[in-house]
């Protein structure tokens, strides 16, 4: 069993097939041995593919009770009796006619041009509660020679709805093995192991449609330049050409598949004819209702952030005090005991390394709680409802309701939010959403807002932080409208079509597993950046900046760090914070917002405050800095500073994610857009604010 799984993004050359599906191979994740047979896991969105994948491989892929959770390919070792195979978890797809990049990836990997790279068998997951819908993909895969095993999930949900399935009859109708499993409770796996092994051993299957009867079309598959039948792809399954004749042929094929599905469902399924109101329906009457629905959505989001910040605060404080107090003191004492105290080594270890690691640790409760609550919402099925109630707002921005999901994720962390844009079928929607995500106020920015609000507006700190979140939402809307009216005038939003999964009680195991997966990802990406940033800042503060001094013996204000910040400072003088000490935090914040407070502590040569809610000496220094840089309008200047911090580049990790998803050109545009918007707004806030405040 593998404790980990590797994931891959959309490979540039998917024709290499499943064997090459891992472009971001995690070397530490055990995989099936080289040459192992490959089994692909496919199915419609939200039928439990990733849950089954995790159960079979011991991996911990992100799972959730809403469509579009899997946007990447995952691979792990699956121990079948006597053989270990490579199991590949494909993004959800209703059919092999792709409408989004993740569906395209599924199609390309299943129908890889190189037959040697195709999977040895395909396990198609079908929801027993929505069987007909799940079978279109089965119908298409059964038109190839790929051995298919159909796995029925959600048997309990189907039973509650009065749906009974005769597995043997269904098996005969589909012409392939059918197995019932419960991946959430890990039942039925032995049967599945046995059937998949048999399917692998049996070799190529007989297509359900006689190949001689399938009319061969001129090649229309992506990346293939042949204008006549070629041998690189099954022509019955390629993207239809745009001529009317081909479209009519595709419709004819679709009708044949639906008729086949109907026959199979008639043979294997007994369902209650009446539509009964379920408790999901009763909840949805309120949760998706015209006025109450959006209010419930706002209340849920408010509760998530409130619980996150209130519950995490004492844990953060405790961890911070532990690191900055006893741990730092113990290291200093230990270094002193061996004659290394008071020098560069102690400075690096205590003020660089330990301060950096301490900061990462303080984020663990905050991010952990946020990820846990979002996982609970996802597992419960609420996220799909959230997409419904926000559809109209998103439509105004020229985006489909589903675009709301990455934007909500952005309030936790911008990096996964950029990846989540892959659930959008339209490339322009993905670009637009990726450009808007950086304006969502991630939790790393929250810590700086809390510190500044507590310092400058102690009586109204909560209101100020809430106002920053409202500003963030306003910015997303305004920038969206701006981009839509300039760059994307011709692009309309795809109308809402979304499957509403039944609500389910979130399981602790699943929610904690998702939380841990995301937290680990955060610690791996942000943690490294934060520790590295803190160390680099410490190093820059040790290097003289041209004003005399020697390495390791230079006052902060004469260091290279101060010199760089002073170089940038005049640009921000019109915004009221053209002071090198304020600007230095923005320079560090460009790399990671998580490191802003610690870099300030380093700048002022102070211990980091025990909590952003108790700024102490750092607060006093910040008050003096903003008072001086703003000419006596410290309050307005700090608001301008927070607006700048909200709007400019979130972090280098976000830039990297954007580059991966939307390319260099759009990433550069987003970078410039963020800096320009941040500067203009900050200057506007300060210049107008100081006249009235």
């Amino acid at each position, binding site marked *: 069993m593998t404790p980990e799984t590797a994931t891959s993004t959309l490979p540039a050359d998917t024709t290499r097939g499943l064997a090459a599906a891992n472009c971001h191979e995690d070397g530490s994740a055990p995989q099936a041995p080289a040459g192992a047979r490959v089994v692909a896991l496919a199915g419609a969105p939200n039928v439990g593919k990733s849950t089954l994948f995790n159960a079979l491989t011991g991996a911990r892929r992100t799972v959730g009770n809403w469509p579009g959770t899997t946007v990447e390919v995952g691979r792990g070792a699956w121990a079948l009796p006597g053989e270990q195979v490579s199991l590949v978890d494909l993004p959800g797809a209703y059919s092999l006619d792709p409408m989004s990049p993740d569906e395209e990836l599924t199609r390309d990997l299943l129908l890889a041009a190189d037959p040697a790279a195709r999977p040895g068998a395909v396990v198609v997951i079908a929801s027993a*509660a*929505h069987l007909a*819908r799940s079978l279109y993909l089965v119908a298409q895969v059964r038109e190839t020679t790929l051995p298919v095993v159909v796995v029925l999930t959600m048997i309990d949900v189907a039973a509650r709805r009065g749906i009974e399935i005769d597995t043997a009859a269904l098996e005969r109708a589909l012409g392939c093995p059918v197995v019932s499993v419960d991946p959430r409770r890990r039942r039925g796996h032995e049967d599945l192991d046995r059937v998949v092994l048999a399917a692998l051993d049996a070799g190529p299957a007989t297509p359900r449609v006689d190949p001689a009867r399938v009319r061969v079309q001129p090649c229309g598959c992506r990346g293939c330049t042949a204008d006549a039948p070629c041998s690189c792809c099954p022509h019955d399954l390629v993207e239809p050409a745009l001529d009317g004749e081909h479209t009519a042929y595709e419709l004819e094929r679709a009708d044949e598949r639906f008729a086949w599905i109907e026959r199979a469902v008639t043979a294997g399924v007994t369902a209650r004819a009446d539509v009964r109101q379920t408790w*999901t329906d009763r909840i949805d009457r309120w949760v*998706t209702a*015209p006025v109450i629905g959006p209010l419930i959505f706002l209340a849920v989001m408010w509760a998530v952030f409130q619980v996150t910040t209130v519950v995490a605060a004492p844990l953060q404080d405790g961890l911070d005090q532990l690191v900055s107090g006893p741990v730092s003191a113990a290291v200093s004492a230990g270094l002193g005991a061996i004659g290394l105290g008071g020098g560069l080594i102690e400075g690096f270890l205590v003020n660089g390394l330990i301060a950096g690691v301490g900061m990462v640790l303080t984020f663990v409760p905050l991010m952990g709680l946020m990820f846990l609550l979002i996982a609970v919402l996802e597992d419960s099925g609420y996220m799909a409802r959230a997409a419904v109630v926000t559809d109209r707002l998103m439509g105004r921005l020229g985006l489909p309701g589903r675009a709301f999901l990455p934007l909500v994720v952005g309030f936790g962390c911008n990096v996964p939010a950029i990846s989540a844009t892959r659930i959008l079928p339209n490339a322009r929607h993905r670009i637009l959403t990726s450009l808007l995500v950086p304006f969502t106020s991630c939790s790393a920015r929250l810590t700086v807002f809390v510190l500044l609000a507590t310092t400058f507006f102690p009586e109204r700190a909560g209101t100020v932080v809430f106002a920053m979140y409202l500003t963030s939402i306003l910015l997303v809307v305004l920038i969206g409208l701006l981009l839509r009216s300039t760059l994307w005038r011709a692009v309309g939003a795809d109308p809402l*079509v979304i*499957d509403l999964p039944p609500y389910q009680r979130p399981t602790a195991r699943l929610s904690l597993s998702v939380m841990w997966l995301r937290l680990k990802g955060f610690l791996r990406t942000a943690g490294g950046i934060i520790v590295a940033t803190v160390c680099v800042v410490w190093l820059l503060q040790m290097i003289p900046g041209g004003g005399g001094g020697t390495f390791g013996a230079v006052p902060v204000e004469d260091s290279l760090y101060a010199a760089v910040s002073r170089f940038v400072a005049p640009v921000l003088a019109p915004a009221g914070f053209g002071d090198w000490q304020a600007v230095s935090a923005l320079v560090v914040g460009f790399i990671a917002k998580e490191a802003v407070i610690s870099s300030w502590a380093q700048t002022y040569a102070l211990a980091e405050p025990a909590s952003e809610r108790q700024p102490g000496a750092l607060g006093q220094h910040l008050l003096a800095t903003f008072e001086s840089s703003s000419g006596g309008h410290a309050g307005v200047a700090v608001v301008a500073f927070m607006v700048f911090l909200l709007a400019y580049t979130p972090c280098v990790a976000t830039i990297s994610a954007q580059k991966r998803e939307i390319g260099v050109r759009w990433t550069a545009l987003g970078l410039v857009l963020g800096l320009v918007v941040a500067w203009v707004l900050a200057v506007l806030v300060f210049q107008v604010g100081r006249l009235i405040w």
Partner: protein
Amino acid sequence: MTLTGRILVLVSTRSLDQVPAGAALVVHAVDGPPALVRRLAELGIRRSAVVTPMHRTAGGGRVIDVAGSRIALAVSVLRSIHTEPQG
């Protein structure tokens, strides 16, 4: 579909945004871009399918029951699904 056929459809059927909640209906035709028609078909909303309109949602859409599944559709999609009473 011919012009006459289209007129007949418009006269004899009602789109899903116009029908009251609760009554089972048979889909007569689905208009719209091919990609949308295909996605709806994959979800079970295609000619001859039985659908039951349920409650309205924020933004003017509504939830539809299709073979026990609940699918939320925007009002523009509802307008493109023409139905007639069952039986």
